[in-house]
Structures are given as structure tokens and as C-alpha cells.
């Protein structure tokens, strides 16, 4: 892919799709594009009707509930148009995923531009597509008129776009000559028509010149840095739990074995209890090792579902946790791992800081988004803290929340924390499924 910047605009082009050579080739290309555009226009029309219906239904309230589906439909059609345009010319970059709430979505400039494109795309696309199809057919029909007019019933002996019935050879030849003129018109008009049909999409579906893309780049840079920070913090956490937890247990085993060995020389009876304690310490080391390994990436995600992995988490949580998970299918591995991490981290916070008696983890799939909610009936007041501030146990609840946010943002997801002092606390995360 060839990328070059011109001022603030970013233009990305692909190697041109196989374009046909010559005048005839260009015309065929143009017709193909116009027919493709016609298809998108039909979908755009359907989406437009749905938007209108939903907007009208807003008067009676249900529309507010229906409108998000319409916006998703618009996004689907717009994405189809983007990929079609990207096939035939410069790549049209898509926007960030749809914001989740209706209000945020309607405030989003890319959503507004899509809504502006919808009527233009639908009307212009349909009209030009229809002309593009009929023009060459009629041109071909007229240009070959002299060959077949005698063979058809009299009422069919008509040139295109007129009611004149041809009865004589000079008339037939005139129609044929006019047919060639039509062919010339078609050859001349089809390519500009194809460009005209693509124009609203190129204008409105790409990023707004300059600002929009710069913002997106800034956002991607920030979330990438956040992802790397979260990754580093994660590695630090793992190093700590290995050194300060597991290793201490194993050292204790070694110390107790050493003591037992010495005891054997002096007073063999004293060695028994020491060996027993050594075994306890070894078992604790194994438990901690399993916990660390599971916190890195649960083995169960590898061959079972996210639900299985989460029920393992819920089952081992010291604060009773109910898991409410619908049939969510599979998401990209990184998305599932992030969802798992979010729940693990959130439940750790619940246990350490909330004083809750119970918690509920809800997982839903809404189209291409995974929604994870962790709710607890604790004392609330949870707030994010920078990763540097740590409390006594080395992984403060606040910095854990920052870690969740960074991880989620790296996936273009959303993170919402509602935790008034006095409780309850609800943490909501949505992630694009990426599959």
C-alpha cells in the first residue's frame, strides 16, 4: 500500500484493481462500477427508509430505542460503500467504531456525515445506476436495429425513447445510425457518471479532511501508548507475584528442608513437623503458581469458551459472584483475553476494596460488540489512580482500574465506572469483537 501525505490530508491508494485497457474497457469498468453503486444505493434506500421510520417513531418514544439499530444499519451500508470505493480508487478510511450511547453516536461527526450521505447516495446511486444500465442496452439495440427489425412483429419495430414505428429501410438505417450515436454517448458518459455516483461517498464517508484524521491518529497514538503501559504494568505485576509470592514459598520449602536435615542429625523426632510444614509451603507455592499462570492467560481460554474461563473466576472469588452470560459465540482471542482480564481485575477490586457481600458479572453480545458489566453491592467510591500510586498490597484498586481502561481503549472499546460513595459500584466495558 502506498501512503503519502499531502498537507493535513492522508491519501491512501491501493495498486489499482485490474482495470481494463482502451475505450471499451474503460466503459465496461464504468458500467460495472455503476451497477455496483446501484446495489449499494438500493441498500442505502432501505436504510434511509428505516432511519425515517425510526425518527418518526421517536415522536411516540419507541424510536429512541429503535434508532441505534438504524445507525448500525447505516454504518453497515456505509462500510459496504467504503469498501466498494476502496476497490475502485483511493482507499476510503473508515471511522472509529460507533460510540455506544445514542446521544454520543448522534454527536459523532462521522455518524452525521454518514446520515448526510445516505439520501445523496441512495438517490444519485439509484438514478445513475438505472441510466447506466439502460443506456448501453438501448444503444446496442438501436445500433443493431437494421439487422433484426424485419424479423420482429410490427409493434416492436420502434427505436428507443420514442413512439415512432419504423416501416421502411431508410427509417431503419436512420435508427441504426442514431444507435451508433447512442453508443458514442454511452462511451463518453459512463465514466463521468461512475465518478459522479462515487462522489458523495468519497466526499462524506472518508475522514473529514485534516482534523478528523489527525484526531484519530492522536487517539490511536494515545491508546497504543496506554496499551504498552498496561502491558508493562502487567509484566511488573507478574514479576512481583513470582518473586514476592511463589519464590518466597519455595525458599521457605528449602529453609524448612534444611532445618529438617539438620534436625535429623540431632533429634530425628523433631524433623517430622518440619517436613510437614515444608510440604504445606510447597503446596502453597503450587497454588500461587497456578494463580499467577491463570492471571497471565487462562489456559481454559485456549480450548474452551470465555464463559468457561469466567465461571472459573466467579467460582474462586471469595466474594460470592453470580455469572450471567448469554450465548456470545467466539470473539478474537485478544478480545476474549481482555474481557477475562477486565473481570479478573474488577473482581480483585471487589474483594480488596469494596466490602461487598455479592457481585454480578454480566456478559452480553450486541451485534459486533461484547458488553461486560461487573456490579457489586459494596461501599462504592472507587476511583482511578495513576499506575505509580500503589497501596500496601502492591496493586492498588485505582491503578487496576487505570489498567482496565488502557487495555479496553487499546481495543477501541469503552469503559464506564459508576461508583458513588456508599455504593453500589458498576463497571461497564464494551469491546468490538474483532471477528
Amino acid at each position, binding site marked *: 500500500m502506498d501512503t503519502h501525505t499531502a498537507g493535513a490530508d492522508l491519501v491512501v491508494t491501493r495498486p489499482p484493481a485490474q482495470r481494463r485497457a482502451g475505450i471499451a474497457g474503460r466503459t465496461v469498468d464504468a458500467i460495472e462500477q455503476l451497477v455496483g453503486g446501484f446495489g449499494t444505493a438500493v441498500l442505502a434506500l432501505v436504510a434511509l427508509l428505516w432511519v425515517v421510520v425510526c425518527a418518526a417513531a421517536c415522536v411516540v418514544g419507541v424510536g429512541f430505542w429503535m434508532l441505534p439499530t438504524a445507525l448500525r444499519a447505516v454504518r453497515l451500508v456505509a462500510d459496504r460503500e467504503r469498501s466498494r470505493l476502496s476497490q475502485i480508487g483511493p482507499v476510503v478510511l473508515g471511522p472509529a467504531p460507533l460510540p455506544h450511547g445514542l446521544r454520543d453516536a448522534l454527536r459523532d461527526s462521522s455518524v452525521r456525515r454518514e446520515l448526510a450521505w445516505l439520501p445523496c447516495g441512495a438517490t444519485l446511486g439509484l438514478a445513475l445506476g438505472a441510466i447506466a444500465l439502460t443506456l448501453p442496452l438501448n444503444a446496442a439495440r438501436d445500433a443493431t436495429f437494421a439487422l433484426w427489425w424485419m424479423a420482429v412483429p410490427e409493434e416492436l419495430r420502434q427505436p428507443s425513447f420514442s413512439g415512432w414505428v419504423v416501416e421502411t429501410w431508410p427509417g431503419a438505417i436512420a435508427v441504426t445510425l442514431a444507435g451508433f450515436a447512442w453508443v458514442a454517448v454511452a462511451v463518453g458518459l459512463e465514466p463521468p457518471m461512475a465518478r459522479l455516483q462515487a462522489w458523495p461517498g468519497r466526499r462524506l464517508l472518508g475522514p473529514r479532511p485534516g482534523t478528523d484524521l489527525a484526531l484519530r491518529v492522536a487517539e490511536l497514538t494515545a491508546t497504543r501508548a496506554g496499551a504498552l503501559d498496561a502491558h508493562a504494568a502487567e509484566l511488573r505485576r507478574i514479576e512481583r507475584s513470582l518473586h514476592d509470592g511463589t519464590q518466597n514459598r519455595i525458599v521457605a520449602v*528449602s*529453609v524448612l528442608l534444611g*532445618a529438617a536435615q*539438620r534436625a535429623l542429625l540431632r533429634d530425628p523426632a523433631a524433623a517430622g513437623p518440619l517436613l510437614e510444614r515444608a510440604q504445606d509451603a510447597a503446596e502453597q507455592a503450587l497454588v500461587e503458581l497456578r494463580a499467577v499462570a491463570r492471571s497471565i492467560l487462562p489456559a481454559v481460554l485456549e480450548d474452551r469458551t470465555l464463559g468457561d474461563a469466567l465461571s472459573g473466576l466467579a467460582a474462586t472469588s471469595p466474594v460470592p459472584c453470580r455469572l450471567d452470560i448469554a450465548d456470545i459465540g467466539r470473539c478474537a482471542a485478544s478480545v476474549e483475553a481482555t474481557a477475562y482480564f477486565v473481570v479478573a481485575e474488577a473482581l480483585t477490586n471487589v474483594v480488596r476494596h469494596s466490602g461487598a457481600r455479592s457481585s454480578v458479572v454480566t456478559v452480553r453480545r450486541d451485534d459486533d460488540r461484547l458488553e461486560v458489566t461487573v456490579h457489586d453491592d459494596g461501599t462504592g467510591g472507587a476511583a482511578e489512580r495513576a499506575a505509580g500510586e500503589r497501596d*500496601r498490597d502492591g496493586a492498588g484498586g485505582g491503578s487496576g482500574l487505570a489498567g482496565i481502561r488502557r487495555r479496553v481503549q487499546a481495543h477501541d472499546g469503552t469503559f464506564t465506572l459508576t461508583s458513588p460513595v456508599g455504593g453500589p459500584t458498576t463497571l461497564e466495558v464494551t469491546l468490538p469483537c474483532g471477528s
Partner: protein
Amino acid sequence: MRIVIAEDDALLREGLALLLRAEGLDVVATAGDPAELLAAVAEHAPDTAIVDVRMPPTHTNEGIVAAVEARRLQPGLAVLVLSAYVEEAFATELLANGSAGLGYLLKERVGRVEEFLDALHRVASGGTAIDPEVVAQLFARTRSDSRLDRLSPREREVLAAMAEGLGNSAIAARLFVTEGAVHKHIRSIFAKLDLAPTDLADRRVTAVLHYLEDARLRA
């Protein structure tokens, strides 16, 4: 010997105390964090402190900071630092102002009770105990064409043992040779490295560590 143990892991702390008491040593107090360590030192005036490097609140180098402070409170206090991992850079920093009564060992060495007790006694009596791992790191980082290349394999073993803080008789026992032979090796090593010969263990450790550190810096 009166000992204070500072280690935040309760199981390990009690295990260590149990081991040392079984060996007839006097563990006068145990501490779970730096503040408790300083309080115990002030209260019991021990001869020796065994200190974990990573302790609350940040689990980074609290143990070292506390050990330095404890030595300021009670000059001459022997400190044996235990750590989950060792870094030679850290060791040279620790021993920058002399190595008398200081030790720096991997935690797991405690399991080899006899050697650990040797190291503990050495540090308590004003000697030095440096983890073999640190010495190995120092050797590994010296440049290949340094003067160390003039040493015979046996002399390198003796040098490493000296760097750990072992005395002549301990080196002789480890290498299964006579003390006289060790003495001869040491004279030869000091001559080859242009170091002033000395039999004082802690001076010797400092000289050897400085030499190795310089060799690393020249690399």
C-alpha cells in the same frame, strides 16, 4: 549472636527464625517492614540483622534503605541482605563504602544451612559474604583480553572464592587443597593483577571486587 530478622513474608520469616533458633542462635526479634526493623534494632541492639531487600510499602529497595539507616543508628551492626534476585551493580553499590560486616546473598542460599551459617558467622564477625551469582556476573562481564586471562583456571576459582568473602581455610576446604597451596595461589593472583597482597579478608574482598568492577568498566 543476637539476631533480628526483617522479612515481610510471614511464612519465610518464621521458617528462618525457627531454623536459626534450632541452631542455637538467639533471634531476639522479627520484623515485617522497615519501621519494625528500626524499632527492633533500637530496642534490642542486636549484633546482626538479616534483611529482605523488597519490603512494603513499594517492594523495591526498602530493605537496603532500612539497613543503611540501622547501621547509622547502631554503627558496627552486621547486615546480611537477602534478595529474590541478585545484581552485581547493586552489590558494588552496597559495598561502595567498605565491605566489613556486610553480606549480600540470594534468598535460596538459606536452604544450604551449613554454608548459610558460615556466611552469617562471617558477616557477624566483620567479614563479607557475596553471593557466587554476583561474582559470576562480575566475571562474565569482564573483557576477554583483561589481565584475568593471565590467571590459571585454579587461580580463577580461588579469586572467585575470595570475592565471595571466604577466608583461606574456607577456600582450602572448598577446593580440597591445603591452606599453604591457597596462600601460594593468592600471592600469584595478586602479583598477576598488580594488587597489594593482604590476608585481611574484608580488604581483600573490596580489592577483588573493585578490580572486577574496573575490569567490567574497561570492557
